[in-house]
C-alpha cells in the first residue's frame, strides 16, 4: 500500500459521554464520530464552539477515554503511548511552565518526544528557527505575549519532526505577520508530506490550507468535504450591489413587487456600509432584476455570480441541526 493511501488517523464510531456525579447529569458530548485522514493530507476540523472538536482531539491523544469507538494512529491503537512519538500537538490554549525559558521548554519536549540525546540541541534550534523564536531562546515564558506563546506551542509540536501534527486553533492570538508565517510553515510541512489536522474557527484558513474537512455540529460529524469540490456542494448565488445613494429604495420596491418580500427565499438583502447587497439564488431572477434596474435607470455598482463559501455551507449545516 502506498504511503498516501494509508491512514494516518482513523476514528470510528467514537462516542463520549461526560461522566457526571450523582448531582450532575451525564451528557453525550460525541456521538458516533467517524472519519479518517490519509498520510500526507491536510485535514480541516470545523465546528462551532462546544461542537466537540477539542474533546475529539483529546480522545485521539489518549487524554480522555471514549465511551465507545476506536482510534488508530498509523494503524496502531492510540492507547499505545509509543505511537505518540509520531504526533505533535498544539493545544487550544497553550500553557507551559512559566519558570522555564523558551529554549528550556522546547528542550523538555524534545526529551519527552524521544529525540536522541545528541540531536536534542540541534532539533531545538531547528524548531525555534522555524517559528522565528531563536533570538528569544533565553526569554522566560512568563514574559511572552499570547502570540509568542503560540509560537512556542508550535515549536514544541514540531520538535522531533513528528509525522502527524494536530493543531487546535493554531492561529489563535497571532498577529497578521504571525498568521502569514504560520501558513508558510504549514505549506512547508505539507511539502514535506507531514499530515496536518487543523481545527479552526477561521474557515478561510481551512479552505486555504486543507484538502479535506469535516464539519462537526453538536458532537456529530455533519459533513465530510473534499474542499477541491466544495463549489459543487455549496449553492451558487447571484449578487447585485446597489449604492444607497443610487436608488436603493426604488430597486428594493421593484424587487418586492416582482418577486415577493425579502425572506420569501427568492432573494436576500443586506446592507454593507453605504451599499445594499441583493442575493438571488436563481440566475433568471437576478437577470430579471437587472433588467428592471436598467429600465428604471437605477445604477448598479456590481453584478456577479459567486460560489458559496465554506462559511455558507458551515452556517447552513449548523442552522439545519439547530432547527
Amino acid at each position, binding site marked *: 500500500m502506498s504511503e498516501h493511501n494509508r491512514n494516518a488517523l482513523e476514528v470510528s464510531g467514537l462516542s463520549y459521554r461526560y*461522566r457526571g456525579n450523582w448531582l450532575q447529569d451525564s451528557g453525550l458530548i460525541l456521538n458516533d464520530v467517524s472519519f479518517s485522514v490519509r498520510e500526507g493530507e491536510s485535514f480541516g476540523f470545523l465546528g462551532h464552539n462546544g461542537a466537540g472538536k477539542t*474533546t475529539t482531539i*483529546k480522545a485521539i*491523544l*489518549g*487524554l*480522555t*477515554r471514549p465511551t465507545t469507538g476506536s482510534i488508530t494512529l498509523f494503524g496502531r491503537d492510540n492507547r499505545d*503511548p*509509543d*505511537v*505518540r*512519538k509520531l*504526533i505533535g*500537538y498544539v*493545544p487550544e*490554549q*497553550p*500553557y*507551559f*511552565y512559566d*519558570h*522555564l525559558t523558551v529554549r*528550556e521548554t522546547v528542550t*523538555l*519536549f524534545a*526529551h*519527552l*518526544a*524521544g529525540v536522541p*540525546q545528541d540531536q536534542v540541541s540541534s532539533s531545538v534550534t531547528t524548531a525555534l528557527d522555524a517559528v522565528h523564536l531563536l533570538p528569544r531562546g533565553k526569554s522566560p515564558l512568563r514574559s511572552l505575549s499570547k502570540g509568542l506563546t503560540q509560537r512556542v*506551542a508550535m515549536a*514544541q509540536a514540531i520538535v522531533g519532526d513528528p509525522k502527524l501534527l494536530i493543531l487546535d486553533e493554531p492561529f489563535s492570538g497571532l498577529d497578521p505577520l504571525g498568521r502569514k508565517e504560520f501558513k508558510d510553515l504549514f505549506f512547508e510541512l505539507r511539502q514535506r508530506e507531514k499530515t496536518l489536522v487543523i481545527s479552526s474557527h477561521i474557515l478561510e484558513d481551512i479552505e486555504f490550507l486543507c484538502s479535506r474537512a469535516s464539519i462537526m455540529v453538536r458532537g456529530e460529524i455533519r459533513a465530510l468535504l473534499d474542499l477541491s469540490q466544495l463549489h459543487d456542494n455549496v449553492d451558487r448565488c447571484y449578487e447585485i450591489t446597489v449604492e444607497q445613494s443610487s436608488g436603493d429604495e426604488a430597486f428594493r420596491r421593484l424587487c418586492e413587487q416582482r418577486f415577493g418580500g425579502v425572506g420569501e427565499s427568492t432573494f436576500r438583502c443586506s446592507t454593507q456600509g453605504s451599499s445594499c447587497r441583493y442575493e438571488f439564488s436563481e440566475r433568471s431572477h437576478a437577470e430579471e432584476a437587472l433588467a428592471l434596474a436598467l429600465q428604471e435607470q437605477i445604477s448598479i455598482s456590481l453584478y456577479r455570480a459567486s460560489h458559496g463559501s465554506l462559511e455558507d455551507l458551515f452556517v447552513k449545516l449548523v442552522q439545519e441541526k439547530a432547527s
Partner: protein
Amino acid sequence: MTESFRRVRAISKSTFRESIRSKVLYAVVLFAVLVIAVSGIFGSVTIGDQVRVMKDFGLFSLSLFSVLYCVISGSTLLHKELAKKTILTILARPVRRWEFLAGKFFGMFFTAVVLLLLMATGLSIFLYLFEGSFDQRMLLAYYHIGLELLIVCAAVIFFSSIVVTPMLIGLFSFGIFLAGRSLDLLLYFLDEEIVVGFGATVIQAMYWSLPHLNSIHVSDALVYDVPLSELHTVWGTVYSVTYSLFLFLIAQKLFQRREVS
C-alpha cells in the same frame, strides 16, 4: 527503559527548576536558619549541655521545615498541572502516566534534599562555632531526615492522585507525618487496653499501615547518645524505599484512571 528514564529525568528536572526558581524555597531556608540561630539563645538559658539543646532544636527544625516545604509545595504540584492544563501537552507526548508521576516525585524529593543540605550545612557551621569540632554522627541524623522526606514526598504524590483540593492534600500528608511520628501513642492505647474489641483492631491496622517514622527518626537517640544498632540505618533505608514505592504504585494506579481534560 532508557527512554523512560530520560522522560522521568526531563520532568523531574523541570519540577526541580520550578522549585529552585521559586522564592518560597529561599524563604524557608532563611526562616530555618533564623530558627536555628534562635536555638543558640535557648541553649544559653538552659541548665546543662548547651550544644545538646542546640542539636536537638536544630534537627527538629530541619525535619519540620523540610517536611513543611514538601507538603506546601507538593500539595499544589499536580493540582497546578491540572488547573493550568500544562499536563495536556506533556501527556500528548509518549509519556506514560507513571513516568509523569515519577518525574514529579523525584523533582520534589531532590528539591527537599537540596533544602535539607542547605539547612544542614547552616546547622553544622553553627554547631562548629560552638563546639569547635564537627560531630560526624550528625550526618546520620541528616540522612534519616532524608529517609523521612522520601516517605512524606510519596505520601504527597499519593494524596495528590486521589484528592483534588491542595488544602486537603497538604493536611492529609502532614497528618501522615505526625501520625507516623506518634505511633508509640497507638501502642500505648493497646498496651493499656484503653481501646478493646473492634476499636483495637482498627488501631492495630492503623499501626501497621501508617509509616513507622518514629523508628526511622534517630535524632533523639543521637543527641542523647542512645546506642543504635548498626543495622538500624540499613533497615531504615529498606523500609523507607519499600514504603514509598508501595505508596507510589497505588498512586500511579489511581492516576492512570483519572481523566485529564
